[in-house]
């Protein structure tokens, strides 16, 4: 089968809350946008039955219902959807390539919103009770539903212990299964001290989950003592797993800067280490993973994509392109020193009309063009000839000095 090639302005990898929101922003900015999702649109949120903390829905919403609305909105703005796995990516350079098994998609911008998944224990029948059937991964999401209940927490890291303590505000009893010897936990010492003093918390040491038991919903967890092999059956209403989270970043590993656990490192503009590649949502190294925060990430990434593409066009056509040599003034509208140079550059422009192309770039709103010209201070003059940067002037900017660059 011959591989097809299709061109898009933006390709979004991942159809969860972050990807869909990025799609809404890109589509609305009239960018030709494709969203690729490997299974079903909606992402991790669709595994949650009840979403009660997403603003705008005072009566709550199902995860599936909410994500369906996100997708409708993205479709309304012309975002195209492709349901398949991304096999590989080439993200360096101006044209990025996203490969699926039938098509190579070429894009100016790629937004990584591939999310992640909670790590599982591998215990027997775990798959039967995931998410809304009793095994949960998010205290913020499911604490209220466990008011007055008995809960088990698996794990002893910061997340397990801190979330476990949070759960004691709702549940009657929080039983923590810890794989280490009595008194040893992976969390910080402060959390450990507080947890051991918490009257609602109980610890079962040297244990790992062996089996999950229930009918429609989870009823009990069978733990196995790692030293004695003794099996302990504990009746619970829910079990929370806090044994880590795995970001879906395998295919980006060689190209995108990741932190140690594999999350994509971005700045506050959702930019990764590569120009034109953004990341949004749970796949990022971030503080809180929720639909509400994924939406914020997606909006920023979508807006950033539009700005990046607009800037690329100015850079290619206006600044580097054309037959005439070019002089670029990088200035900052809020700086008096910069503003004082405007008459100078205008005088130069008048003098070299039809001989030199003059561009003024205000860096106040975006540093993108300055970065592409390799300039990090203002005011600055860049001289461009034959599509190449010939010279840069950052001090002593006068009419004579500009002329002497030519």
């Amino acid at each position, binding site marked *: *089968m011959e591989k097809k090639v299709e061109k898009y302005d933006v390709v979004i990898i991942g159809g969860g809350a972050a990807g869909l929101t990025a799609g809404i922003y890109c589509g609305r900015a009239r960018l030709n946008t494709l969203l690729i999702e490997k*299974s*079903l649109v909606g992402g991790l949120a669709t595994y949650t039955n009840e979403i009660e903390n997403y603003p705008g829905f005072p009566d709550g919403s199902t995860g599936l219902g909410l994500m369906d609305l996100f997708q409708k909105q993205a479709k309304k703005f012309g975002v195209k*959807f*492709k*349901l*398949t*796995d991304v096999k590989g990516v080439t993200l360096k350079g101006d044209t990025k390539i996203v490969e*699926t*098994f*039938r098509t190579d998609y070429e894009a100016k911008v790629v937004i990584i919103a591939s999310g992640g998944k909670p790590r599982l224990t591998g215990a027997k029948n775990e798959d039967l009770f995931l998410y809304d059937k009793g095994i949960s991964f998010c205290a913020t999401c499911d604490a209220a539903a466990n008011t007055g209940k008995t809960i088990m927490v698996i794990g002893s890291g910061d997340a397990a212990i801190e979330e476990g303590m949070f759960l004691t505000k709702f549940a009657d009893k929080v039983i923590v299964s810890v794989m280490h010897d009595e008194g040893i936990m992976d969390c910080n010492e402060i959390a450990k001290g507080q947890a051991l003093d918490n009257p609602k918390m109980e610890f079962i040491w040297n244990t790992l989950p062996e089996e999950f038991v229930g009918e429609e919903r989870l009823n009990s967890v069978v733990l196995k003592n790692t030293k004695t092999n003794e099996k302990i059956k504990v009746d619970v209403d829910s079990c929370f797993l806090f044994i880590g989270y795995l970001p879906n970043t395998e295919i980006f590993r060689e190209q995108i800067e990741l932190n140690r656990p594999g999350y994509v490192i971005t700045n506050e503009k959702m930019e990764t280490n590569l120009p034109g590649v953004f990341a949004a949502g749970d796949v990022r190294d971030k503080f809180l993973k929720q639909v509400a925060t994924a939406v914020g990430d997606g909006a920023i990434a979508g807006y950033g994509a539009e700005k990046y593409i607009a800037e690329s066009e100015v850079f290619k056509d206006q600044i580097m392109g054309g037959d005439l040599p070019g002089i670029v003034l990088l200035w900052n509208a809020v700086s008096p020193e910069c503003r004082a140079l405007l008459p100078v550059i205008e005088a130069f422009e008048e003098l070299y009309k039809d001989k030199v192309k003059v561009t003024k770039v205000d860096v106040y709103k975006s540093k993108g063009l300055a970065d592409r010209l390799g300039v990090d201070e203002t005011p600055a003059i860049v001289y461009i000839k034959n599509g190449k940067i010939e010279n840069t002037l950052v001090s002593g900017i006068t009419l004579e000095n500009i002329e002497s660059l030519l």
Partner: protein
Amino acid sequence: MKEYTIDCLGEACPVPLMKTEKKINSIEVGDVLIVQIDHSCAMKNVPEWARTQGYNVEIDEVADGEWEVVIEKTK
């Protein structure tokens, strides 16, 4: 490498999946099978089954509520 199409329009689960399994056994490795469906449950179970077999899968929404599941028999 050949391309085959099976028409499962108007058919409810598990018929599309059964037809898919049958057809895929009769084609060669490297061939592509396109399953036309308009039942949303088939959109879930046909791709899920194909993925667990290790095949390449892509779903195209060809019209509102009508899909083509494209399966490449990779082994």
